């Protein structure tokens, strides 16, 4: 008995529009911050538009708004067609769409306002995290119920990737967002220091895995066969590569923390699993590319396949580069530099961007019932995008390695050849300029896509629904014996609930084996007696540091290399971070490390420097922060912040709502301000943010110097 049903193209169109709009916005913000590195005064002096606040906006826009909407676009198009069933609920689809857009708008508002957790790709504050979890569950519910109500018994490989995406992102997001709110706009993560770093990079790495990789692999497995009109190269390979990928990926997170204060065994585990990850990643790439064997002539004809081929190839390159970067010797050079920026842009622009534009060029003509407006324009876009990527990535590779080698170069006398960090920055400025050209080329290409897709839509008629027919699922087939080895995976592929549970088990194994020892580390991080919690004023200063995104350019983690201890001071110890909620180790040194900045310069230096960095450091590309001299520190919120941290076992001796909290903060601020005024800075005002920031900066990394016994390595 054939049944007739209708696919909903409206939701597909909406996600397509959102993908394009947010994509352009995300790219433009990227261009703005690239220009800010060349012209620090560009859009300068405005807190809401400062580099440290816009960079998270750029990464979040590209990851969650551009790629995120593209994921939904691909899933809402391919899932119903693979299952021969419309989405379970059009209402849930709509909530998914509008909820996701509302969250993005929320990010566009809160991040420039400095409402941020500072944790990379998880910057949104706790109230946004709750909204994300709700919308994500609605998406997953809609997807799973569609799967349970399908007509095609067999669940195709693309859908396993979608299921793994839903489950793992939910787990990652919830664990990494666990926090105690101190106010409506501020929370402290429940983990501190080393543990917080491990959880964050377990999340950060797997956000790349399960937000930017698995859903796009699912998209690849549906759209490459469609566009080439031939089945996937090897279905068996897809099974092996799916299970190995989701099993191994979850372990590799610690490679973001090599040479840091993270225990060495955890670092090594991260490295080993990163190397192993090459195999399943390349399994996916090979499967995608070989699907086109014998059909390569079509690649010349079809812009969809062109973007796919370059995208999948870039995926292969990135997933080779990633494991190599996780080797300690390579990491020692590449980490904290622009090399990593090149690495992520190869993935984001070519792999995520390439696949996204490919499916846009595939879907839009089909849901409007016309051929693409201009193949030529799409080809022009392809070349702008490809050249743009090269102009972006290659200068950043060169600049990253150049700068790193300069950081590490010693003279014959055993002194740093470039003791002034700034010298290593000015040397790579030409690379920053070339990178901006690359980014601009990519954006121009994307604008061609907007025109092309718009004209295509204009020339056709939108098919809001699409009719299809299929027989109802044969329920009797389910009682087929399942125990034989031959039929096992086929049987499993007809059991979505069991498949999902297995996926959950597989991804949790990695998490659990990694977490049990980490939980033990909590009580085993060598405590350093002299390390004490921040004073209320320093805490306020630390939150200003977070709010203005200083951590986007400055690390607080001195690795145990001679080149780093000579430049910055004693290397960082795990025990120094036990009260750091969140950790602020950073991942990029656009400016120097700050862990031992405390006491390095007088307060007056910071007072001059923050207003106009060029006044103390000629040629600096750091933007000034004049607003810190006019905006007041929020003292009133300090008691609830201290309460939140006490809840997390930070040993403050203050009672709840102790009036001494505010009194102490004000007294410390007045002391700093008075000293500055005595030195001739007549406008130094204890209530202003700059004073709290200076208090924090001068405290940073100093406790250990007071130690009577320093723990041995």
């Amino acid at each position, binding site marked *: 008995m054939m049944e007739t049903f209708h696919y909903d193209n409206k939701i597909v169109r909406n996600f397509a529009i959102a993908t394009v709009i947010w994509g352009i916005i995300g790219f433009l913000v990227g261009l703005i911050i690239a220009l800010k590195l060349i012209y620090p005064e560009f859009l300068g002096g405005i807190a809401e538009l400062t580099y440290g606040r816009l960079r998270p906006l750029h990464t979040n826009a590209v990851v969650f708004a551009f790629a995120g909407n593209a994921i939904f676009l691909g899933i809402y198009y*391919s899932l119903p*067609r*693979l299952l*021969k069933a419309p989405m379970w609920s059009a209402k849930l689809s709509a909530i998914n769409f509008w909820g996701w857009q509302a969250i993005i708008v929320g990010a566009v508002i809160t991040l420039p306002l400095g409402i941020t957790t500072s944790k990379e790709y998880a910057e949104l504050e706790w109230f946004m995290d709750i909204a994300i979890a709700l919308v994500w569950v609605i998406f997953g519910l809609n997807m799973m119920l569609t799967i349970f109500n399908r007509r*095609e018994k*067999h669940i*195709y*490989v*693309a859908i396993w990737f979608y299921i793994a995406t839903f489950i793992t992102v939910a787990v990652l997001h919830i664990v990494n967002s666990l926090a105690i709110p101190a106010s409506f706009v501020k929370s402290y993560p429940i983990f501190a220091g080393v543990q917080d770093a491990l959880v964050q990079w377990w999340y950060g790495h797997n956000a790349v895995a399960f937000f930017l990789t698995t859903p796009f692999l699912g998209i690849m*497995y*549906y759209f490459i*066969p*469609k*566009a080439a*009109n*031939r*089945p*996937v190269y090897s*279905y*068996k390979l897809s*099974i*092996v590569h799916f*299970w*190995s990928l989701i*099993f*191994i990926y979850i*372990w590799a997170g610690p490679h973001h923390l090599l040479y840091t*204060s993270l*225990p*060495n*065994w955890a670092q090594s*585990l991260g490295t080993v699993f990163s190397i192993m990850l090459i195999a399943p990643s390349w399994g996916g790439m090979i499967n995608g590319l070989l699907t086109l064997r014998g059909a390569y002539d079509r690649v010349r004809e079809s812009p969809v396949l062109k973007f796919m081929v370059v995208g999948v190839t870039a995926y292969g390159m990135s997933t080779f580069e990633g494991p190599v970067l996780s080797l300690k010797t390579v990491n020692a050079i590449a980490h904290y530099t622009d090399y990593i920026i090149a690495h992520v842009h190869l993935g984001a622009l070519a792999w995520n961007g390439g696949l996204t534009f490919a499916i846009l060029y595939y879907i839009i003509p*089909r849901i409007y019932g016309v051929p693409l407006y201009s193949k030529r324009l799409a080809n022009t876009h392809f070349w702008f995008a490809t050249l743009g990527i090269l102009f972006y990535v290659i200068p950043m590779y060169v600049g990253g390695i150049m700068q790193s080698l300069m950081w590490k170069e010693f003279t014959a006398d055993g002194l740093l050849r470039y003791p002034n960090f700034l010298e290593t920055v000015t040397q790579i400025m030409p690379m920053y300029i070339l990178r901006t050209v690359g980014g601009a080329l990519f954006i121009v290409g994307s604008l061609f896509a907007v025109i092309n897709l718009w004209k295509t839509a204009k020339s056709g008629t939108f098919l809001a629904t699409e009719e*299809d*027919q299929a027989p109802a699922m044969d329920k009797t087939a389910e009682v087929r014996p399942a125990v034989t*080895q*031959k*039929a*096992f*995976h*086929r049987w499993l*592929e007809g059991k979505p609930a069991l498949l999902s549970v297995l996926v959950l088990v*597989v991804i949790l*194994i990695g998490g659990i*084996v990694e977490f*049990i*020892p980490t939980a*033990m*580390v909590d009580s*085993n*991080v*060598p405590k350093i007696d002299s390390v004490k919690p921040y004073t209320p004023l320093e805490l306020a200063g630390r939150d200003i540091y977070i709010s203005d995104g200083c951590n986007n350019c400055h690390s607080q983690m001195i690795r145990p290399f001679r080149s780093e201890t000579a430049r910055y001071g004693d290397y960082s*110890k*795990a025990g120094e971070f036990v009260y750091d909620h969140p950790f602020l180790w950073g991942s990029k040194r656009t400016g120097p490390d700050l862990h031992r900045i405390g006491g390095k310069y007088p307060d007056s230096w910071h007072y001059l420097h923050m207003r106009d960095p060029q006044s103390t450091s000629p040629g600096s590309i750091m933007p000034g922060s004049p607003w810190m001299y006019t905006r007041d520190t929020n003292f009133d919120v300090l008691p609830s912040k201290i309460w939140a941290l006490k809840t997390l076992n930070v040993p403050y001796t203050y009672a709840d709502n102790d009036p001494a909290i505010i009194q102490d903060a004000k007294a410390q601020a007045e002391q700093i301000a008075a000293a500055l005024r005595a030195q001739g800075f007549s406008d130094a005002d204890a209530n202003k943010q700059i004073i709290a920031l200076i208090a924090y900066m001068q405290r940073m990394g100093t406790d250990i110097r007071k130690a009577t016994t320093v*723990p*041995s*390595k």
Partner: protein
Amino acid sequence: MYKQVLNSISNVEIYPIITLVLFVVFFFSMIAIVVGMDKDTVEHASSLPLDDKEAT
């Protein structure tokens, strides 16, 4: 520093061993299952995206 952490966790060496065993068992049972899959299943499964009314 890390040695101190390691020594203070009793039986820490068990973790890498568990890891290795888990992965090997997982990987080889998967290979066994996949190698044994019958041809019809594989053909049916891989033709699924192409199996709709739309002409591409």
